[in-house]
């Protein structure tokens, strides 16, 4: 396999809950709790989970945008946790981010040229001053926009076009890793496909590694090489796209996959749908032992007492965090 670009080991992010005039800490939200994963060169790692599971926080912690509470994050061998702010700003070149909301991600007071050119003003060594306008025009072309749009303002573009501007900005510094935080979920279906295709083409062209955070499981499956399933701040299962979708081991993964509507009416009533009961528990007060146990149909006493570790289980070929992990196919018709 190719080289590891980004490696996280036992990363935690706790947000303090404060109360009162003096902002006394009264508790902690365990948004990310002991996550370890690796991102290889040129691959796409999908992170899926319900809203509130900590996937967006994890993505930002991985790029040093939110400081980790503990653990280790190594970008090409260099430790990000506890790094000096000046060096961290410098190293930001290598990891960029694309946001979900194409409306709030672009400064409405700046022209497209200034938005895409801003990275060059911060990292002046990347492009000499006289060269910047040409570079911005090139970037516009790369993402499929006309270079003539350089003097326009964001509100003059549609959602899909704005997302392309955001992608051009992320590409400007030639990063090694791009964090895609729900990059297509705010877009219409037909535009979604355009942006997914663009991301895939850019990956091939520039050898990028993606961390692709999304709740749309079909899009994640299409674009990802490997997929991590997250629930309440922890990884439940980690494997290749094929392993996760065709041979899911963890009950949560199975429930998640079975809930995805399939655009084929002939499968109606012929698929097993695992409908989870109840809501996501609070990350400020997670259940003991396995965090999924309160909604799990397999839960037994041991699940409340002992936390299952993420490891390769019997009958499995990829790590999952369940005492009773076993393969169950849910993406195909049952009879």
């Amino acid at each position, binding site marked *: 396999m190719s080289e590891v670009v980004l490696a996280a080991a036992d990363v935690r992010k706790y947000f303090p809950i404060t109360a009162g005039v003096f902002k006394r800490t009264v508790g902690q939200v365990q948004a990310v709790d002991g996550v370890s994963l690796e991102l290889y060169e040129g691959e796409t790692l999908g992170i899926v989970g319900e809203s509130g599971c900590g996937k967006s926080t994890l993505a930002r912690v991985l790029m040093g945008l939110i400081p980790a509470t503990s653990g280790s994050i190594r970008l090409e061998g260099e430790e990000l946790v506890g790094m000096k702010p000046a060096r961290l700003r410098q190293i930001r070149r290598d990891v960029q981010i694309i946001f979900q909301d194409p409306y709030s991600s672009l400064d409405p007071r700046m022209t497209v040229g200034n938005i895409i050119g801003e990275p060059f003003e911060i990292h002046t060594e990347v492009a000499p001053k006289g060269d910047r306008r040409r570079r911005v025009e090139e970037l516009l072309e790369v993402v499929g926009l006309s270079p003539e749009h350089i003097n326009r303002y964001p509100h003059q573009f549609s959602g899909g076009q704005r997302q392309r501007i955001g992608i051009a900005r992320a590409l400007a510094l030639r990063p090694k890793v791009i964090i895609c935080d729900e990059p297509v979920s705010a877009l219409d279906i037909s535009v979604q496909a355009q942006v997914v295709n663009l991301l895939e083409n850019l990956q091939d062209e520039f050898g990028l590694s993606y961390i692709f955070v999304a709740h749309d499981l079909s899009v994640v499956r299409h674009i990802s090489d490997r997929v991590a399933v997250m629930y309440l701040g922890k990884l439940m299962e980690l494997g290749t796209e094929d392993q996760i979708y065709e041979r899911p081991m963890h009950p949560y993964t199975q429930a998640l996959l079975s809930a995805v509507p399939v655009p084929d009416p002939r499968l109606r009533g012929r698929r097993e*749908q695992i409908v989870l009961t109840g809501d996501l528990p609070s990350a400020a007060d997670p259940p003991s032992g396995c965090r999924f146990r309160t909604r799990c149909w397999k839960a037994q006493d041991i699940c409340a007492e002992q936390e299952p570790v993420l490891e390769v289980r019997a009958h499995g070929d990829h790590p999952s965090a369940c005492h009773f992990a076993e393969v169950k196919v849910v993406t195909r018709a049952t009879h």
Partner: protein
Amino acid sequence: MSDSDILSAGPVPEPADSKAIASLHFDPTAPLLDVQELRVDFHTHEGVAHAVNGVSFTLEAGRTLGILGESGCGKSVTAQAIMGILDSPPARVVGGRVLLSGVDLLTLNEDDRRQVRANRIGMVFQDALSALNPVFKVGWQLGELFRKRLGYSRTQARHEAVRLLDLVGIPAAAQRVDDYPHQFSGGMRQRVMIAMALALDPDVIIADEPTTALDVTVQAQIMKLLADLQAERNMGLILITHDIGVVADVADDICVMYAGREVEKADVYSIYDKPAHPYTQALLESIPRVDMKGKQLASIQGLPPNLTQMPPGCAFHPRCRFARQRCRDDTPPLYTVSPGRLSACHFFQEVLDT
């Protein structure tokens, strides 16, 4: 004359019947909901936008109609026009009829219209948090319908609220009835909204993107709840969504909208099997599928048109792979492809054959 005579001389409030609306004669033999040639314009400072441009469909009791389309195609405006909750200005209904059991809702006065809402048509919105009033307890908001419309006492109304919350599967309904909307999770709030829409036992439910803001696992719960309630009460359900997967799972009939018009109408099986309009075809192709892994997704080039500057002829022609001169010149009518199946494409046969 004594005081008691004067008091009793006044009109006695009649025991309210949730269905009876004075002066309206609903015909039980007419189709449940029959929308004919509905047109809605928006007056903007850029000009007049034809947001809904001649939409027609029929909904029978116990059936589910899925209205499918991307943002700006007019699907939500259609729903709001049926409900009579359009913001006007800028919106104006400029033509068509909305027949509910034979009564044209568009000709009713505001009072009757309000009666029809809730009593006969209920609506579930996408954003339950903003559709519920944040400063009132959910039980009070639910009970209000019974107090205002049916003249129930506070205790009776509260009792009904608990019954409804229980019906939509909210655990410990008797306690949750005193909670405020923000104390519910997203999925639970959507259940409260459904309870509200169901309160007066309507014949039609319009659900406008009811699960778009929810996670898949919760979406599955909510769709199941809607389907169960519909079957149990034999209601007509209009499901408005952009999610091709969701409609495939629950709809009987599908109406695909593009730029304010219906472009294809058919039963769910034929449409997913062989679409008869290039737009439907392209939409279905643009969903990622397992066998497409590692390949380019089929995407529709370009963007939907600006509703104030519609292209001549077929509105989809600038993005269509079948387009030719005729598409630029003539607006295609809704051709009958087969009985009960319509497509607004001159070359539907060609589309079917690909």
